[in-house]
């Protein structure tokens, strides 16, 4: 059974371990640079990308401002179409609802289309506790599940694995989960895909309950939308007798007309494609299918109450910010300790979960504030702004607080700064270039300290600048 993120170390420690894994860094670098380049090329093709991006922001802001109205509209439309709507305040409630719904069908197995929301609430683990096995059917999620691993990317959960690692995972673990890997499996992508196809086909044809998420929910008709590349999701949505969709409440779009915009923004931003291969829409279930929609809050209304932080809820999970982030590129997704890694994870996770744990408190600092994430975000989430906003909430270590207060005191009068500069100049011979004590040692591990000049700029100005 897949592991969960509970009990992860704080970001800097997890990251320090990750950057030493050269295979991981190589895999990540190759993958993120490839997607990054593709995205840049297809975005450059669109003459009015900036306007589309601004429009995406406006639509999502409208949704967030009028969320209650749109959600009631969704409930009404889904119910009218013959579906059932459930409201879940948190992960425990959502898991209990889904578990009960599966138990009511009498089946012990479910197939899943890749879903961030169910990962967020730990649904697979909750179902396992009730004796129900959840089978992931997205290829990358399958690799993660078979490898007893954790997802490392929003769009490409197995981004940290290369194909020879995937071959090993298939050979060692497919048999435990169903149809074994064929003999003589190579690491050719086509062969690996064939093995997965055979393994999954058996599963699709025998499983009676499907669980999905949704990329969008259209309020005016109660229609759910899933975008995917493989067609496996479509099988999960249409073959089972019972379909349960777990969807975060922020996923709403007001109208079909808005969907048009997001069907253009999302694929270009996420996979670097002009259009995604499979778009499935469903309003309640397909004929003869029982349909349940679980609307998930799990901290979202709390995020909504924060006027700066709420823009994180505009996120459409495209992962463009991950692919362009220099920090993510060096450490991968696991260090973020959440199903949402990278820059968006650094602002979304501590807002959804709070900052009680050391890991969650360290996430707003998992960025150099370089701003690349904001530039690529298709709904213009100002991630650096939210990071700084979350940092202001603290908590701060006592030593750092004292240091910052002292620096603030020095900087609040030019005469004090001048005094410190004079002392530094006199002591300049005693400042080591290659070894600093305390927190400075983190600097001198890989960098020399600049030489302190004999005279500050202001002293030179007083002497001969004026």
């Amino acid at each position, binding site marked *: 059974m897949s592991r969960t993120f509970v009990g992860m170390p704080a970001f800097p420690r997890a990251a320090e371990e990750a950057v030493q894994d050269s295979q991981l860094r190589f895999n990540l670098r190759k993958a993120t640079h490839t997607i990054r380049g593709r995205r840049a090329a297809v975005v450059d093709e669109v003459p009015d990308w900036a306007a589309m991006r601004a429009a995406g922001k406006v639509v999502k802001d409208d949704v967030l401002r009028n969320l209650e109205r749109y959600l009631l509209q969704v409930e009404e439309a889904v119910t009218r179409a013959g579906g059932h709507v459930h409201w879940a305040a948190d992960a425990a409630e959502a898991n209990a609802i889904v578990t009960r719904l599966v138990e009511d069908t009498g089946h012990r197995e479910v197939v899943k289309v890749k879903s961030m929301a169910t990962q967020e609430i730990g649904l697979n683990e909750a179902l396992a506790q009730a004796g129900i096995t959840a089978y992931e059917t997205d290829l990358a999620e399958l690799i993660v599940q078979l490898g007893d691993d954790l997802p490392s990317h929003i769009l490409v959960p197995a981004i940290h694995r290369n194909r020879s690692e995937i071959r090993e995972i298939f050979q060692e673990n497919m048999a435990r989960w169903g149809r074994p890997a064929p003999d003589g499996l190579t690491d050719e992508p086509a062969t690996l895909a064939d093995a997965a196809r055979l393994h999954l086909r058996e599963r699709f044809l025998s499983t009676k309950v499907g669980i999905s998420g949704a990329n969008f929910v259209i309020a005016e008709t109660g229609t759910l939308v899933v975008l995917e590349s493989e067609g496996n999701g479509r099988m999960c949505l249409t073959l089972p007798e019972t379909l349960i969709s777990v969807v975060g409440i922020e996923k709403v779009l007001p109208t079909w007309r808005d969907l048009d915009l997001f069907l253009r923004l999302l694929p270009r931003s996420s996979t670097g494609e002009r259009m995604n291969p499979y778009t499935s829409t469903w309003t309640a279930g397909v004929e003869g299918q029982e349909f349940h929609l679980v609307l998930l809050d799990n901290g979202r209304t709390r995020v909504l109450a924060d006027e*700066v932080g709420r823009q994180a809820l505009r996120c459409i999970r495209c992962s463009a910010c991950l692919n362009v982030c220099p920090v993510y590129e060096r450490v991968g997704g696991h260090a973020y300790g959440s199903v949402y890694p990278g820059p968006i994870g650094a602002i979304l996770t501590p807002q959804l979960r709070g900052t009680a744990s050391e890991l969650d408190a360290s996430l707003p600092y998992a960025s150099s504030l*370089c701003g690349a994430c904001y530039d690529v975000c298709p709904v213009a989430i100002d991630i650096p702004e939210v990071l700084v906003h979350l940092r202001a909430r603290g908590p701060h270590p006592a030593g750092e607080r004292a240091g910052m207060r002292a620096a603030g005191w020095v*900087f609040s009068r030019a005469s004090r700064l001048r005094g410190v500069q004079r002392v530094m100049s006199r002591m300049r011979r005693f400042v080591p270039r290659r070894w600093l004590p305390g927190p400075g040692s983190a600097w001198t*591990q890989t960098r020399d300290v600049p030489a302190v000049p004999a005279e500050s700029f202001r002293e030179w100005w007083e002497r001969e600048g004026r």
Partner: protein
Amino acid sequence: MRVALFVTCVNDTLFPNTGKAVVSLLRRLGVDVDFPQEQTCCGQMHVNTGYRDEGVRLARGFLSVFGRYDAVVSPSGSCASMVREQYPKLAAGMGATRAKAFTRVHRGRTRFAEAVAEVTPKVYDLSEFLVDVLGVTDVGACFPHRVTYHPTCHSLRGLRVGDRPVRLLEAVRGLELVPLPQADECCGFGGTFAVKNAAVSAAMCADKIGHVMDTGAEVLCAADNSCLMHIGGALRRQRSGVRVMHLAEILASTEDLGARR
């Protein structure tokens, strides 16, 4: 036109040559530049590390020092971007305070927001001031060396200086400008990030200096000494032989000075 130099606390204390270079360059171009001596720090380190109130106090100081000038020039993309991009956000976010202090807070907030609106549009990064305000790209510099340019994150994505620094460098006599691979990637300094996430910062810097050394340049140039301190510190530790120089120092170089420093 009354022009002030905002040298920044880091340059003032550790890199005085950059400030001297700005003064000599601007005077050569006929600008009468002043250095208001009450200036200290824009508050970026405090705000970005999560000490907002301290940062706002320093921001107030900045606004009162520079309010009386027509233009403020800074040889730091990062500090100029703090003032121009982040001060308005600070002003917008100053509402959430207890109700009993409302009137006082409200007045303070209004005054701060007014000062921000008045001062921040007059703040320029050096390359913007030269190209946009003075209208020059050839500043009469001579620097016969092989140079590569790192467009620091805050110049690139905060101030959007675009190709202004490159145009200035291209007009320098004798200078051979070689492109830096993956130039727009962050070097990993990020202020306190370099200490709080030292391992990631070092990994980012290692890739950056690798690209710098691949160019075969003698000099790495940028418009921000904080980034140069980080990259230069690693270059020195590696005994790479590549020097780092601020854009202002290259632009201030003339035939008789040649390679200063």
